[in-house]
């Protein structure tokens, strides 16, 4: 079974070296038989052995070339199949190299894409943090506004400018001025109240104060409101200091 298959596909199988040398040996034997027979016949016709050998060689023609032609015929299929095999191997290796190159460049593109996505994600995260901070800021300013509104939720939140509260208060700084009237004393309370004991002096410098004009001053003591409690206007500066 295997032997008959081997015989059928013999031209497709690689030729073993002993098969190759058997073919060469058969050809050499066959040609040698011819030359020897021709030489013997020529000698029997009266040629000298030297003449007979020369004449036999002349009539036979180039023995190497004839042997080569015989070998080519015997090995034709094998040679052709070998060439096909070499061509197939070449094509396969080229295809493999091409696919490797493509997959390499694809993975490089993928990693570049991943990096880009990562960068995008970082940007989004940063934006989210910023917006969270803004939300916090907004919440903080809402709290401030609420406090300026006297802590009344749902009060008119419309703002009309800033007033500045400095000096001996718990939270000095700029405060948004609500549309509802905010008095000097309520502003001080919004800023956390006074942070010192005893008699204190509160000055109110109006935004439209003329140069050289001395600010209005009020004296307070403890938690009681000053005798006069003017309404603040945008740009006013309120300072709390010791007498």
């Amino acid at each position, binding site marked *: 079974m295997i032997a008959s298959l081997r015989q059928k596909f013999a031209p497709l199988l690689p030729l073993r070296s002993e098969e190759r040398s058997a073919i060469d040996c058969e050809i050499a*034997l*066959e*040609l040698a038989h*011819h030359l020897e027979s021709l030489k013997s016949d020529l000698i029997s016709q009266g040629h000298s052995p030297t003449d007979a050998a020369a004449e036999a060689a002349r009539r036979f023609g180039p023995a190497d070339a004839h042997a080569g*032609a*015989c070998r080519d*015929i*015997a090995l034709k299929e094998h040679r052709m199949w070998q060439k096909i095999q070499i061509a197939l191997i070449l094509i396969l290796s080229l295809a493999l190299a091409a696919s490797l190159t493509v997959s390499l460049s694809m993975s490089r593109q993928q990693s570049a894409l991943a990096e880009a996505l990562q960068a995008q994600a970082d940007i989004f995260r940063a934006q989210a943090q910023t917006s969270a901070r803004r939300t916090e800021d907004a919440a903080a300013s809402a709290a401030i506004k609420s406090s300026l509104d006297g802590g009344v939720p749902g009060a008119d939140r419309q703002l009309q400018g800033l007033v500045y509260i400095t000096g001996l208060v718990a939270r000095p700084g700029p405060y948004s001025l609500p549309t509802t009237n905010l008095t000097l004393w309520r502003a001080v309370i919004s800023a956390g109240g006074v942070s010192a004991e005893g008699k204190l002096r509160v000055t109110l410098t109006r935004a439209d104060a003329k140069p050289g004009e001395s600010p209005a001053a009020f004296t307070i003591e403890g938690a009681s409101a000053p005798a006069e409690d003017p309404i603040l206007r945008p740009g006013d500066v309120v300072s709390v200091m010791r007498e």
Partner: protein
Amino acid sequence: MSSHLPVPELLRGTLDAMILRTLDRGPSHGYAIARAIERASRGDLLIEEGSLYPALHRLLKRGDLSAEWRITETGRRARYYSLSAQGISHLADELRLWAKVSAAVSRVLAPGPARTDGPAPGGLAEIYGAFTKATLAAAGSEAPREVPA
């Protein structure tokens, strides 16, 4: 008897046919085939004897021949070739083709009506005479004649 002629270019393709025809008489080795062709052509055709072998191997590969190693009468080992059924069929094709071609070439080369402007110059008349004789002789020979030893 003319001297040995190398096989002309035109006849090269007929080497296969001559080998098949020779082996139709029975299995034979390369040297015997060369001698048989030489005898059958009465020594007029001289093939380069080594060129028989590529032709034999080609016919063997094609399946027209089979081959086996045997011991000759002289005690040498020789490869004997014999015709396969396919070889016999190819020989029939070659014989038909050769009959057609050789008859056609002979008709073209054969002496025609005498020239109107006088006798053929340069000894052509003599050659025409020899040609007619040879053609008639070939037509009369059924089997290849052996050269007397």
